[in-house]
């Protein structure tokens, strides 16, 4: 693996706090993400990792703090905006569209880019009147490249619901990739996978990172995997940031160790 050049900060999270009613999920979290790097957020279950992503995605609205992306600073993110800015995301407990085929699931990732309007789509036809068909085909081709990339050709037309867990995770990733993201947020991409699947997944993640130069923010609660593939690591525990730095630095950080020993992982 050759050296990839890590650029300057693209995404910057400044002392975010998030509360649900009485419960506090996050308290003054701040960290930054640099171009082209693999940035991991680790922490025991319930440390608020997913909530962090949900704030970046605009799923949750943090009460305090701000998030800035490429210079623009936002108090609240708006999902649509986030997507348009090129931040894609996968989910911890599969959030695929159960009723749709693999291809269609990944195709949804292209929706932002579809130009033809409702009427054009309605009169979609093989005789290339209205161009909706042509557009569909163009996007389908792109999607097929992703399918090829993730090596799921054999399952193309299958309804996602019937596929094994490991594959569904891949499709989730595929859907995110279809957005051609600049920043890719991965929420426990390897949770509940067997070793082999984990290796595949890490391979894909690294490939994405250096084939397309995509910046990757990666959540994991199991340290092992993360340490080998990530450049810098943030450690959360009970909604607080207890460590930040290179894998080695983090590994030797007492708080982190105690947090992990504490929650016996």
């Amino acid at each position, binding site marked *: 693996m050759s050296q990839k050049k890590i650029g300057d900060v693209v995404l910057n999270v400044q002392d975010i706090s998030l509360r649900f009613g009485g419960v506090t999920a996050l308290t003054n979290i701040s960290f930054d993400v640099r171009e082209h790097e693999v940035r991991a957020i680790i922490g025991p279950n319930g440390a608020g990792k997913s909530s962090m992503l949900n704030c970046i995605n605009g799923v949750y609205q943090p009460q305090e703090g701000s998030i800035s992306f490429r210079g623009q600073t936002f108090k609240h993110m708006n999902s649509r905006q986030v997507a348009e800015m090129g931040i894609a995301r996968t989910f911890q407990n599969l959030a695929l569209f159960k009723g749709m085929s693999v291809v269609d699931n990944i195709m*949804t990732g292209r*929706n932002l880019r579809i130009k033809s309007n*409702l009427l054009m*789509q309605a009169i979609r036809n093989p005789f290339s009147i209205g161009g*909706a*068909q042509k557009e569909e085909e163009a996007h389908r081709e792109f999607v097929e490249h992703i399918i090829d990339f993730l090596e799921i050709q054999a399952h193309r037309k299958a309804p996602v619901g019937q596929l094994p867990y490991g594959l569904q995770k891949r499709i989730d990733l595929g859907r995110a990739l279809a957005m051609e993201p600049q920043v890719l947020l991965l929420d426990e991409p390897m949770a509940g996978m067997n070793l082999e699947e984990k290796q595949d997944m890490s391979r894909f993640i690294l490939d994405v990172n250096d084939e397309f130069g995509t910046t990757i923010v990666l959540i994991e609660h199991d340290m092992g995997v993360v340490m080998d593939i990530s450049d810098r690591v943030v450690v959360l525990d009970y909604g607080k940031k207890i460590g930040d730095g290179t894998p080695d630095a983090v590994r030797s950080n007492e708080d982190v160790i105690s947090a992990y020993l504490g929650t016996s992982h």
Partner: protein
Amino acid sequence: MLYRENGQLKTTYGADQQIFPIAQDRWLIWALIAFAFIAVPLLADEYLLRAILIPFLIMSLAALGVNILVGYCGQISLGSGAFMAVGAYGAYNMLVRIPGMPLIPALILGGLCALAFGILFGLPSLRVRGLYLAVATLAAQFFADWIFLRIKWFTLDSPSGSVSVSNLQVFGLPLQSAADKYLFCLGMLAVVALLAKNLVRSAIGREWMAIRDMDVAAAVIGIRPMYAKLSAFAVSSFIIGMAGALWAFVHLSAWEPAAFSVDLSFRLLFMVIIGGLGSIVGSFFGAAFIVVLPIFLNQILPAAGAIVGVNISTAAVSHAEFMVFGALIVWFLIVEPHGLSRLWSIGKQKLRIWPFPH
């Protein structure tokens, strides 16, 4: 068993994405269309056309609309009857107020009225989900009932909102005989069904299904729930509205608000559930089932009674109809919650891999 797919290889995405990728299916569907357009009008008698086929076609159209909203976008609606009513009265007003208004534009305008109405009552869907929404849509139902009953303007001051249309014409051709009406409805249905199918297999359709299956994820990949839901409401209520207008003009030709009561809304919902949520073809099955069932019962029950030696009054029949109907609904939900279309596709799959079980 009948499928021979070897050599049907797709060399373009266009070929791969067509509505019926398998050659055998294409032949079948063309045969079916030909049969419906040519053979049926010649063979079917007056009663069959008027009492069964025309209602079936129109209800299929309506069910199609409902299915887009409920089946594809996952927004439960109990106000479909209202959308039909708005469509019907809207078209009616267009027809009588604007001199020389031809029928088809009138229908489309009727549909557009329903569309506006639909979007208005679709707004709650942005805030509320599931059952709350279902009840919210009931509001549309009762509101519509009331409007056409009480606000005379819509019904040209006719008593109790009952109005009628006569000697309809399409492109100067009179729409009199049952066969004409049948063909007209069939044509409308065919066109709309095609357009609808195109929508659901395109980007917008995927947005709807995405919202239905996992709205948060959908939002995160940049789908605007508002646009998706309202467009679903719009398209759906437009189709339902047109169906309503057809129902009123072609089938009833004289009607009052009661014709579009909440009961109709329920029946439409049954159609899509029994037919199969999220399936175009399911809408047809559902419509057929719900349209034919009562007629069937009306025929069969007295006969059955006669056999046992009991004379069953018409009232009794209608009550029994209620019971059988209810029982069947429940039975269906238990046995095949995914509706007839699921059975259909399973059967088809079995045929494809015949003689293997899987």
